[in-house]
């Protein structure tokens, strides 16, 4: 499933927060590769730098040092506007909070992304949103406003928002963190199938061991350094020891 050339390659990433006197190093010489069709799970204790690494890899936070090459291009040498267009074209995001406009319906949340992002017509947006809502099992909730959806439905809409434009990369930060495992498992399955079916590279940050069976590779981050890598052997539903 993984191709020989990594879709994303990060080398020697360093990042620190704070001023000269009180500097906290959050990333220290981190290098990793991400392949298309692969699910990479990044685990680690709270404050280990997981979310910072996701931000650096996805073009949201410039590292102090190091390089991120995505599809052969150096992400952090691009101009801001180009990086924005790059994200628009290739990246999808799922965050821990649902972050949905409370007064828009499930379908309107997604249509907004297609219409604003790609300039698609209303008709085209509706067609594509209808398809993805069906895949997400949300057809019957399409007309419901976000504030009337359950937590699981909200996160599925958020996943739909990330996958709507068929991104080559999907970055998910604790995507199941706000959900019980029944709904959390639905969400991780959806993300995993996006990687499998569409060849997207999926980078998931999480700390729930039940996510491990859904990953192709698991990286562990501790104190800003990548500690080790494991290849899961469990099947989904089987909690690793």
């Amino acid at each position: 499933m993984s191709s020989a050339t990594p879709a994303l390659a990060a080398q020697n990433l360093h990042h620190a927060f704070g001023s000269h006197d009180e500097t906290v190093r959050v990333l220290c010489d981190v290098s990793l590769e991400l392949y298309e069709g692969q699910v990479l799970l990044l685990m680690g204790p709270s404050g280990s730098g997981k979310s910072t690494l996701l931000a650096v890899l996805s073009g949201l936070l410039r590292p102090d040092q190091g390089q991120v090459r995505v599809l052969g291009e150096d992400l952090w040498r691009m101009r801001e506007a180009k990086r924005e267009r790059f994200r628009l074209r290739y990246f999808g995001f799922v965050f821990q909070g649902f972050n949905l406009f409370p007064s828009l319906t499930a379908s309107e949340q997604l249509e907004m992304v297609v219409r604003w992002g790609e300039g698609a017509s209303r008709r085209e947006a509706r067609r594509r949103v209808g398809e993805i809502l069906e895949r997400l099992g949300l057809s019957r909730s399409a007309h419901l406003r976000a504030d009337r959806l359950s937590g699981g439905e909200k996160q599925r809409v958020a996943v739909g928002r990330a996958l709507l434009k068929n991104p080559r990369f999907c970055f998910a930060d604790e995507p199941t963190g706000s959900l019980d495992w029944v709904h959390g498992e639905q969400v991780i399955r959806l993300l995993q199938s996006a990687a499998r079916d569409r060849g997207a590279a999926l980078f998931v940050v999480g700390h729930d061991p039940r996510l491990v069976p859904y990953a192709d590779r698991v990286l562990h981050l501790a104190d800003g350094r990548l500690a080790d890598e494991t290849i899961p052997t469990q099947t989904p539903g089987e909690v690793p020891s």
Partner: protein
Amino acid sequence: MPYSLIILWRERRRFLPAILAVAFSDLLITTQVGLLLGALAVLSLPIDHSRADVWAASRGVLSLELSYPIPESWRARLASMSEVVETEPYLYGFSYWRKPGGGSEVCCVIGSRLQDGTLGAVSDLTPRMRTLLTEPGAVVIDESERERLGVQGVGGIAEVAGNRVRVVGLVRGLKSVGPPFVFCSLRTGYLLQPLFRDYPQHTMYLLARCRDPKDAVTVARRLGQRSDLSAFTREEFSERTRKYWATSTKAGIGMGFTALLSLLVGLAITSQTLYAATVASLREYAVLRALGIPRRKMAGLVMAQSLWVGLGGIGLALPMIYALAASGESSGAVVLLPPWLLGLGTGLTLAMALFSGLAALRSLRLVEPITLLR
């Protein structure tokens, strides 16, 4: 339906203060200026309702009530002009009205000739009233001023500048914003204005009618070249009077400040509401930014919301403006609503709403996707 309108409608309770603020601003600006226009129209009413093409007065006169006596003999200057076919004197001045039941009131005495085709008498005086006014001491007042002048109506007796006067008729729609108008003959006018006791054979104005009304401008310009006289066409003098009151009196300036204040209050509420609404959605906007959607799309949404807020407020204000104008009319306060004023109110409040939207855009600077990861 655009997202801006969908969000505005579904979150109408959040946006209601801004819509009400715009409506309040539009209502206040339009009715204030409409009231001012109504009041100013009354001030220049004696000019507007006259048949004179040219008004001549003492040098440098700024407004109808601010002239000074000029020799009546100057009529010859007007009469000698080939374009002029008719001239007559016109009295306008203040005096004291002693009410029969005690107390006094400043009044504005307007004395004019009364025969058919008179240049100075307001067109509201019926032929019968003009006949009755030929009797010395006979006056006509507006019916709404009866209480203020302490008389019941026709037949009421009072005293003006030591002379007995009798009300012989009542007119409608000539309620002054200042001292009440008292219409009378020239002869009575001289008696009722103490100033003319010191200026015999003087008049306050000289009026002229031209053979061709189009010549009024030429006549006024030629007369105005003299160093001791000012002369205007009827329209010029009417506008001069209204402009003077609008710009030089506290009434006009006060209304202007009230209108400005209402704009500022509207601006503060509208911009704060839009700002708060944008701040409340910062995390949603941050996700869109992370997905690469340009900031200008969100700015467009905020600006569209400010436009809808403006249009909603104006839509709410218009019926209220007409209702207030109608209720003012019934209580004697004239509110004039010419189309340009409605356009001005709409334009100013819409601009205010859009400016509020621009001010709210600063909140979009707070939209940073990285905040979603902390």
